[in-house]
């Protein structure tokens, strides 16, 4: 396993995000369509968020704005998962946050 494969997969996903900016269908998806047909789609509340419906900015072309939002999402997902590399420290970090590290050490020694 080398870094080349990882890098090429991230490039591939950016390419898919690029394609989806131009080609993705804007029709409602399965659950939304069922909600429309059965008449309960109005119950849904639109929440506020950073990029609503994968739109980076209202000011630019919708396709380009979707591509930017997609690239942002891909990078943020990769870095969130990459931070799992610190998971060996996780117990220590949680213990420090809740100030139970001394107690945990004493319990481990017994």
């Amino acid at each position, binding site marked *: *396993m080398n*870094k080349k*494969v*990882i890098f*090429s*997969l*991230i490039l*591939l*996903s*950016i390419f*898919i*995000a690029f*394609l*989806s900016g131009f080609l*993705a*269908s804007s*029709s*409602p*998806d*399965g*659950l939304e*369509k*069922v909600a429309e*047909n*059965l008449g*309960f789609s109005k*119950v*849904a*509340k*639109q*929440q*506020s*968020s*950073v*990029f609503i*419906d*994968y739109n980076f900015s209202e000011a630019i072309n919708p396709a380009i704005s*979707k591509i930017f939002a*997609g690239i942002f*999402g*891909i*990078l*943020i*997902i*990769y*870095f*969130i*998962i*990459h931070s*799992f*590399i610190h*998971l*060996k420290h*996780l117990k220590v970090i949680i*213990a420090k946050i809740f100030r139970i*590290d001394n107690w*945990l*050490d004493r319990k*481990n*020694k017994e």
Partner: protein
Amino acid sequence: MHIPDGFLDQKVSAGTAFMAAAVLGYCFAKVRQALTSLVPESVLAGAGQMAANISESSKKTLSTFAESHIMKMGAIASLIFAAQMFNFPINNGTSGHMLGGILAALAVGPFSGALVIAAILSVQSIFFADGGLMALGANILNMAVVGTVICYYIYFIVNRTFKNKFGYYIGVFFASFFSVILASVACAFEVAFSGTMEFSKILPAMASVHAVIGIAEALITIMAVEILINIKFELEGIIKDE
């Protein structure tokens, strides 16, 4: 099938969030156990007197293969996130997109796969308003638990029964087909329990729409696994022939 806020009532939101958190905690413990190992005694001996002061939790370290496993998880997560953006049209002015649970489970194993899908769903909910924050527990239960961990065992059982190339393709096909169907059925159950819609109406509607999406999902998953094998990505969820 990201459930937006408003479809679920409070008791269903809270119950599904609790169940999702319990299963994800189990998955995280499994992955952590697989990826960490104790620091060898010989290294500790070098620390001499200091070694007695090192706490038990600090004596664990990442195994050698752990870093590449985590990078694989990240790469497959960004791939599935991009694939979920790509809505393809199906009949009657409806669109569908990939779920990716079986792809994640085949690439990095079912427990890491569930963590991957849960991370994707959280980012979609927080940054892109795709799926409500209150409904995040239900979405994780539908897609990461039912659509990834449980449906991986369909592949597992089918592959164990046939034990050849045919069994592998049939297993991947049915696992990814049923991952979409079962996730949509779980979604229908949750919406019906919340009293938003009668169960007898929403179940056939959800299952029939997602049957079409499920076939597309199965074809995309088989294609994606072939691509991953061709670029020499080591798939950890695939059962090897003895």
